[in-house]
């Protein structure tokens, strides 16, 4: 069994997911994790599938999707990740909002990276002049979250954007 990462991006239309997954199913591949969204109206999907097939076989099976030149499809072999080994972590949610300008995400995420923070999910939206970024961040258990929040706000002030960092609330039932 090997893992293959598939990305499909381009012009949105009904049926892309149905067509792509039909191609993968025909190869006997099993869908594991996937995510799909529209980015400024463009279809964007990433998924990991498993099975005894090569990336080139997958690209071949999905070639009809890209035939009209409006969708790009790629398939690459990826190794297994065990998802452990990150030590003790605490989850936080970061919000950044303000006037759009280049460099907002890089400045703010640079502060997180310097603190050993690992972003596990990120959504950014530009609506009109308003730029919004929401990130889920794992901070090392020994990181001083208040200090990180102060440095994030300082980085935001230089860019004229508001930044908040707060613990992620998880209810285990």
């Amino acid at each position, binding site marked *: 069994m090997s893992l293959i990462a598939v990305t499909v991006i381009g012009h949105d239309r009904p049926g892309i997911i149905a067509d792509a997954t039909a191609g993968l199913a025909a190869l006997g591949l099993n869908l594991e994790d996937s995510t799909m969204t529209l980015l400024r109206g463009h279809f964007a999907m990433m998924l990991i599938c498993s099975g005894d097939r090569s990336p080139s076989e997958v690209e071949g099976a999905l070639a009809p999707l890209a035939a009209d030149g409006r969708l790009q499809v790629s398939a690459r072999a990826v190794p297994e990740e065990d998802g452990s080994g990150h030590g003790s972590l605490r989850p936080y949610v970061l919000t950044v*909002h*303000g006037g759009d300008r280049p460099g907002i995400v890089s400045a703010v995420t640079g502060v997180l990276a310097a603190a050993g923070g690992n972003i596990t999910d990120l959504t950014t939206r530009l*609506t009109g002049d308003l730029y919004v970024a929401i990130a*889920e961040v794992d901070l090392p258990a020994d990181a001083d979250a208040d200090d990180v929040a102060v440095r994030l706000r300082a980085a935001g002030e230089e860019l004229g954007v508001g930044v*908040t960092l707060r613990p*992620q609330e998880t209810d285990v039932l």
Partner: protein
Amino acid sequence: MSIADWTEADLGVPGHVLTVVRAPSAVLSTPSPLVDPASPEVVQLAADLVATMRVSPGCVGLAACQVGVAAHLFAVDVSSHPKTRTSHGTFVLCNAEVVEATRKEKGREGCMSVPDLTGDVKRATRLTVRGLLPGSGEELVVETDAFEARALQHEIDHCGGFLFLDRVAGAHAIFPRQTYQ
């Protein structure tokens, strides 16, 4: 008096409809200073907030910073919203603060100052708020629940310089506001 007995007629001045400012605007991201509830400017602003709230479809609350004024007051009226349980009608509070907040639940929020997005935010559904009435300056304690509690926390956040975007539950908790036809 009870907050439920208050009406904007108590202000004694007609309100004018003001323009609602949108993010990104610095006034929305800055804590608003406390106000003198008896000052004529605050009384007029209170009337203006109610008037602006009334003409805005679906609007259940409006903070002063949303009309571009850095001042710690807001208007609320959730009386005609379907998610409302307890409602105290139309009222304006100055310098309001949360005294007690319990029983958090997640709900979808929008904001006139962020017209293109909505977000899932956890808010207390049992809430006690203390604030001052515009004009008389009388201190009142409002105990409420459900949607009125959510609206009050949203407006008090505005006065602190926070948008609902600063409270959303995670990276997949903001949504483009769709208009289906």
